[in-house]
């Protein structure tokens, strides 16, 4: 996983992108939470989680992403998922994930 600054969203927002991978679906996926925590501490107000390399998100993945959302909302930041496939969008809608985070390029 890596992260980089990017200009998305509003001009005043400080945005960072984090890339998830298949490890998201295992205990090792918790490292994405730590990465996000660091970015939030650095003052990031918008977290983009890129799921282009994530074929499917399982329950562990969902739990970890909900953790990211929770941490971000406690820090007053918002979470955007990008490059999410249709199955995952459906899942996120069904589980209420999309009530707490936006999905970029919803048609992907």
């Amino acid at each position, binding site marked *: 996983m890596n992260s980089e600054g990017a200009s998305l969203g509003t001009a005043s927002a400080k945005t960072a992108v984090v890339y998830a991978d298949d490890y998201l679906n295992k*205990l090792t996926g918790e490292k994405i939470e730590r990465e996000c925590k660091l970015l939030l501490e650095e003052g990031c107000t918008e977290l983009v989680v890129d799921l282009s390399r994530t074929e499917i998100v*399982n*329950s*562990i*993945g*969902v*739990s*970890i992403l*909900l*953790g990211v959302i*929770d941490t971000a909302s406690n820090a007053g930041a918002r979470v955007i998922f990008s490059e999410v496939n249709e*199955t995952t969008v*459906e*899942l996120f809608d*069904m*589980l*209420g*994930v999309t*009530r*707490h985070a936006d999905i970029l390029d919803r048609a992907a």
Partner: protein
Amino acid sequence: MPHDKSLNIEDLQYANLTESAESRSKLVHTFGALAELGHEVASRSNFQDTIRTSLHLILGSLGIMRGGVARYSRFEHEFNMLAVRGLGESFPLSLELCYEDERQFLTNGLAPIEVAQAAVLPFFQVYDRTFSASRLELFVPLVIHEETVGAIFLGEKATGLPFSSYDREIICAMGRHIGSAIAQRNLLAEIERRSEENRRLYDDLRMTYSDTVKAFAAAIDFKDKYTEGHSVRVGKYSEIIASELGWNADEVEGAAVAGYLHDVGKLTVERKIINAPYRINAKESAELNKHPSVGFEILSPIHHPYTDVPLAAKYHHERIDGRGYPDGLYDRQIPYIAKVVNLADSFDAMTTDRPYRRRRPPHEVFDDLHRNSGRQFAPELVTAFMRGMLKELQGESKEKRFRKLLGREYMEAEGLASSLRNILNSMTPTSPLTRISVGQAHG
């Protein structure tokens, strides 16, 4: 654990598959989580990781924002948190229960309890503020085989909707898996504790046995005022020989016990014969010579854990050339432990003062052992014994076992080490040729 940890029919029934309102993909997602949970619990991975993974699976399968898994300590009457997510820094690491709570949870079983509606229970009164600060909605006591082993704490669903009956069934099924994992872990800890306890009990027994043996040895030696400490020394020499032979700890201890008790039959021999300050006559000798067989009679009914102590007592006066007593056995007919004790016994007899003579000087003693190798003694026992002494003389062994038994002066006799080396060299065959010459010398 007889409890089935993999995904089973029961779980499917619990999850109430027929509830048609739920979409197919939701079922696929949830059952994926259940299957994975079953797999995780059945795997032998680290317990903490299993619990953390389980918490992820339960939260992620139903889209629950926060939660925790705790293990119940029966002795402390408290839940100890094993994994938490999103409950906040101030959520306690352990939560106390009272008797009433315990009783209620047991009757309740695995069914999720609505936190908001459980205020009648002391537990929810005590932790009311904590639970509402962490926005907890459900509490699931993990009751496995009528025992509370832990609990699951769950926050709100990401959808903002209340938990459906379908959700509750899923939570219940998952709770059973997590509860089994904890129960299994508890059982393992219990087994470890018991085996530790068992080991301690065994050590105690072992010490009791060893104390009894030593007390017996002291009683035997007490009867013979001229050979004070003889049995104890024979025990220690036997121990040295056994350890030089590379025997394991139990066998070495067995050899020591055989040495301690070898003369137990003397307890029945008249004191005046044992203590005679002269060489005893034939009749007295016959009486004294019964002591190995009497010793066998005394020791036979007792179970000795490490070696055949009764046989050691019976045959410790046999010689490998067949000229010993009571049965005149030859080399291989004599139990090995009896040969060990015989050497230890003879060595102590030669190196201590007797009523009719003084102890013999070391060179003479070792020449005697050498000369009688293959006659009275098994040669490999003689070399093992001498090797042990040489090691000590050369400072190779930390323990000064011989010095404690023989005294410093005796051990410092001039040229002792070099004559031991010479004897050992002549007794240790280095080529087939020397082996033949040793054989001829003894033939």
